[in-house]
Structure formats: structure tokens, C-alpha cells
């Protein structure tokens, strides 16, 4: 009896590394199916398993249940005293007993300019509340132990538990090209411009004001990364990947090049910077006309997570005016 119990309690989830009894069909910490084969490619990428339909994930006195396969839903059953936070457009339904409130955020104008949500909400139990990312993909549960942190690509957060601190920091991965829109110099000027454009056809005309003397900024992995850090208690962060999600553990100084829009999350210990490759095609003069490939160089130690479905990287191919710290490589 004792031996059996001890054996059951030693099950370690191969994905989140947390131990449980193994009696359930899925890991109670991250929702990964129990006892499935770890699916790792020869190069070391581990495919994150889809959270099984109706799988439950425990956090604090509360639990989350994941349902649906095309566009999954995370249904939270919040106990009294437990809470979560989220961006307002993720809320699918809630019971009236759940208390929803605004979450204070700093630097609203900077967030607006960066395209980050201006308003985030908190929900406190008791009661049930459900979230959906409104697009096909996979829900990924990232359990955080005490003091642990994870950097997540902007707009991929579905929900996080309240004990997890939220912060956001520049990615420092950017480049500037010619011929873009002029960056607004002040909040007032930008508002006036927006108001004038509203009075016209409606909406911003992105090509208006395009001028070769102007510059265009590009942020291949977004302008900011969301950082989530657990406090005194363990926490849970749920993100949604487009397509499939893969994770790889990088060793000390081990590096790899990835498509910048494919980055989903990484440990804060993982560094990253822009990497540019120039294929040797024709005269050297021409190489700046679109003959370049932009990569994100990431190096360990730590985990890096990718999504297999990502937006096309917006590179007009015009001359760089400036770049963030980067490396480059000219093909022979």
C-alpha cells in the first residue's frame, strides 16, 4: 500500500517537470497527458502535447478545465480568494458572482503606441469564468514555481493567476528602414492626426505621408515582451500558440536561429538579438534590395518555445537606416 502510493507520487511530467501521483489522465499542473511518449525531434525540439479535452489543471484552491479542440476554451473555477487576470477581449463568459475589475497598468500611451492592450481585467472568485483566444491553435499551460519567470510574446496571453506579477519590457529587436510613416512626436499631435483622419474616410491610411525622407520602424518579435514572474507561491500562465508549439532546452551559450514571428515564449535567461543574412546574388550593390533574411538569434541557457503558424515578417527590403544590436553573415 505504502509502496504503491510512493510509486504513484513519483510521476514526473516530462513537459513541466512537476511531480504528481500520476493517477489522473493528465498532469494536474500543466494538463499534458500522463504517460505519453515524449516526442522529441533529432535536433532536440520537443512537441508540446495538446491538452486533452476536458483536462483539469489545479492552481491554488482553484482549477482550470480546457475544452474544445478547434478553438479551445479555458474554463476557470475560481475559489474564494483566488483570482486571475487577462486582457478584456479574451473573456467568453462568466457567472455573475465573479468580481471583475480593472488592473492598473503603467505607461498607457506607450502601451497604446506599441499596440499592447490598454486595459487588462482581473477576476476574483468565487465563481466560474471562461476565456477563449478566438482563433484556432493550442493552449499551452506554463506553470511557474516560486520566483520563476517566463517571457511571452505579446498578444498570446490568455490568462494568468493573480499571484504572478506582470511586467513588460522592450525586446530590443528592431530595425529602421526608409520610406515609412513618420513617428508621431507627441500624444496631442497624434490625437489631432487621428481625429482629422477619422473625419475623412475613417481609419488610418497607412500609406498617407509615406515619404522617402521618412523612416519606418519594424519590430520582428513585437516591441515588447510580456514577463510573468511567480511570487511567493507557484502560479500559472496560459498562452495560445498558433498552429503547433515546440520547446527546446538550450545549453549554456548554445544558440539557434529562428524566424522572429515564430517565437512564443522563452526563459528570461535566454538572450536574443537580430541576425541578418545576405545571400550572394548578383552585384553587391543589389543585395540591399530585398536580398536579405532576417532571423532571431537566441542563446541559452534556458527554454525557448516556438509556434508553427506565424505571420509573415514585414520587411520592405529598403536600406536599413539603423538596427538594434545584431550579427550578420554574407553568403558566399
Amino acid at each position, binding site marked *: 500500500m505504502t509502496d504503491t502510493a510512493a510509486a504513484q507520487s513519483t510521476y514526473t511530467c516530462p513537459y513541466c517537470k512537476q511531480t504528481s501521483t500520476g493517477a489522473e489522465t493528465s498532469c494536474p499542473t500543466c494538463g499534458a497527458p500522463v504517460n505519453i511518449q515524449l516526442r522529441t525531434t533529432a535536433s532536440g525540439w520537443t512537441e508540446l502535447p495538446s491538452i486533452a*479535452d*476536458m483536462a*483539469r489543471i489545479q492552481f491554488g484552491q482553484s*482549477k482550470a*478545465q480546457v*475544452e*474544445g*479542440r*478547434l*478553438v*479551445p*476554451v479555458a*474554463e476557470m*473555477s475560481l475559489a474564494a480568494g483566488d483570482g486571475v487576470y487577462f486582457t*478584456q*477581449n479574451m*473573456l*467568453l*463568459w*462568466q*457567472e*455573475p458572482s465573479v*468580481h*471583475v*475589475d*480593472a488592473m492598473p497598468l503603467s505607461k498607457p500611451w506607450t502601451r*497604446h503606441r506599441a*499596440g499592447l*492592450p*490598454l*486595459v487588462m*481585467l482581473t477576476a476574483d472568485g468565487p465563481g*466560474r469564468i*471562461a476565456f*477563449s483566444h*478566438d*482563433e*484556432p491553435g493550442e493552449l499551452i499551460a506554463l506553470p511557474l514555481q516560486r520566483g520563476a519567470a517566463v517571457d511571452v510574446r505579446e498578444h498570446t496571453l490568455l490568462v494568468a493567476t493573480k499571484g504572478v506579477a506582470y511586467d513588460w519590457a522592450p525586446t530590443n529587436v528592431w530595425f529602421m528602414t526608409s520610406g515609412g510613416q513618420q513617428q508621431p512626436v507627441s500624444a496631442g499631435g497624434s490625437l489631432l492626426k*487621428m481625429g482629422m*483622419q*477619422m473625419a475623412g*474616410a*475613417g*481609419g*488610418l491610411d*497607412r500609406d498617407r505621408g509615406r515619404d522617402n525622407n521618412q523612416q519606418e520602424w519594424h519590430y520582428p518579435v513585437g516591441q515588447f515582451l510580456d514577463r510573468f514572474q511567480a511570487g511567493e507561491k507557484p502560479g500559472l500562465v496560459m498562452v495560445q500558440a498558433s498552429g503547433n508549439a515546440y520547446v527546446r532546452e538550450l545549453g549554456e551559450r548554445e544558440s539557434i536561429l529562428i524566424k522572429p514571428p515564430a517565437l512564443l515564449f522563452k526563459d528570461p535567461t535566454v538572450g536574443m538579438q537580430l541576425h541578418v543574412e545576405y545571400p550572394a546574388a548578383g552585384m553587391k550593390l543589389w543585395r540591399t534590395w530585398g536580398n536579405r533574411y532576417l532571423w532571431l538569434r537566441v542563446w541559452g541557457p534556458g527554454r525557448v518555445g516556438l509556434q508553427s503558424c506565424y505571420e509573415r515578417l514585414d520587411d520592405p527590403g529598403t536600406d536599413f537606416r539603423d538596427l538594434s544590436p545584431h550579427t550578420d553573415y554574407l553568403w558566399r
Partner: protein
Amino acid sequence: MTDVEQRIQCRWCHAQSPSSARTCDRCGAPLDVRDAVTDSGWREAPRLRDLTQFHWSASGCQMDAGVVPVAEVTLAGEDTVFFEHHAMLWKDESVPMSVLSTPGGARRLVSGMPFVLSVAHAPGRVAFSRDATGELVVIPVEAPAEVDVREHALVLASGSLSFTYEKIGGFRVMLAADAGMYLDRFVAQSAPGLLVLHGYGNVFQRTLGEGETILIDPGAFFYKDSKVTMEVTSINMKGRIEDNAAAAPPADDSAAGTAAAPAAAAAVAEPPKKGGMFGRLKSVTSMVNVGGIAQAAGSLRSGGGIGGVASALVGGGGSTMFRMTGPGRVGIQSMFRPHKTGSE
């Protein structure tokens, strides 16, 4: 002769089938798969097997369940189906077609609803697709019953159902709710009928008890029994829920008896009183909150235009919710931002 064969009941539509059947003959739901129900009572719509067949009246339907599912209908006898014309994928050349007489006329046109509903008559085959990723949901409707459906979600309805529509009251709903101005209402008066709907993403259904309420995102609303009342509610950024006057009227169901409804439900369904011009002005200003301004700015930046800005301002930044009050079924879809197929 006595029928001694054991029967099995479908958990989705409650029809009985022979115990040897693998799928329900009336709705196509698998009978040998356990129900997937969340802890809070949301039931996943049955995951129809590819090429599942089911029948109604003299006709049948076969589902090509895939990423973008297709419903292939074989019409026989005197049966007909009606549908929005652009949902038709292909048809036998011999299938007679006509137009359903629909109420509303120009109002339907102005509100973005299809001006013409097409009718396909037996005999022959017609196939339908909503041209978008999602699930097809089969809802048999027993007489007498009424089902309200989000506009543009209909794939097909059997000719035994009558069609009307209900206006969702209020300017605020029109701008903020993302659910359109009207609900399609399908009524089975004397004979049973069949509805096939398309939901974006995954579809879930929950049966609310008498007076039980739940708040759902307006875009997630998919269908409901007409007895379920629907009101627009705002969650302001201080966590307080505000009720709005706009409410979709419940069905005029004297048989069920509104008198039997508990006082709590009646209080929820009753529209708040308005206080003249100043009261209305106050009501309008209360709509605009921080979330609304934030979402308006986002809409402006992404090219949403004046309509998007107004919608965001009035909608309170996505914190506008539908308060659904039972008794009855409520269906939701897990993709809930406005999704439009090509012809809408």
C-alpha cells in the same frame, strides 16, 4: 407484434435509436462516445463523424465533417429546406427552387440580413457549407417550440419550420453587441423540424434552470430557446455590473406561463425605467468608459473607421455582455469576434 428491441437515448436530442446504432438517426450524434461536459455544465456539441447520416421526414442528410464541414441533403417526398442562398455549395440541376416569403422586406436589407431566403424542393440533392472553419450543429425542433439563432448562422432549416425574426432592442446592442440587430426565430408549430447551424470554433450548450443567469460575450452567443431572456449588461471598470434597457423579448408563450416564472427572473427581464432627456443623456455617458476609449483607439489604429470607434466607445471596450436568464438552452461558440463569410 411487440417491439422488444432495446433502445438507446441520444444525449443531445433525446431521440431513441436501436441499441445497435452507432449514431443517432435524428441528429447524427455519436451514441457510443461519452459526453464531454465541463464542470459548470457546458456540453460540447456532438463531434459528428465524417459521412454520418441522419434523417427527418422522408429526407436525409449526410455530414462531411472536416475543417470546413459540408451538409449534403437528399430531399424526398414533399420535403423542402430553406437557407441563405450563399450557403449553398452545389445542387442537382433538377432540384426545383423557389423563394421563401419572409417578413420585413427592406428592413432586413438595411440591417444586413439576406433579403431572399431560398427554398429547395424534393426530389434531388443539395449541399451546404458556411465557407468557414467551425462545427455544424444539428438541432431537431419538437413542436411546439421556438429557437432563436444568431443571424447568419443558419445553414439550413426544414420546410416544416416557420421563419420570423426578432429585433434586439436598443441602439447600444446594435453597436456594441457584435450580434447583429436581429435574431432569426424558427418556430415548430404543429410538426417537428430540423435546424442545421454553423458555429465558429467549437460549440457548447448549457441548459439554464428557471431564473438561472449567466453572462456571455455578445459575439459568443449562438442560439437559445426563445424562453431564455437576453439582456445587454455592462461590466464597468470598477467591477460593477450595470443593466441596460435593451432586451430581446422572450417568446409569447402562454402555455409555459410567465406567471410561473419566479420573481427574480421577472425582475431581471423588466427593462429599467428611463428618466427623460437627462436620464437618457446620463445613460449615454455611462456607456463610455476607459475600456471603451481604449478599444476605440485600437480600432482607429487598425483602420476600423468611425463605425469601429463608435462601437468600441459604446460597447465599453468589450465589457458589454449578454445576460442570459433561463429556463432553456443556450449555445455559444468559442470564436466570438465578428466573423463573416464572403457573402455577408
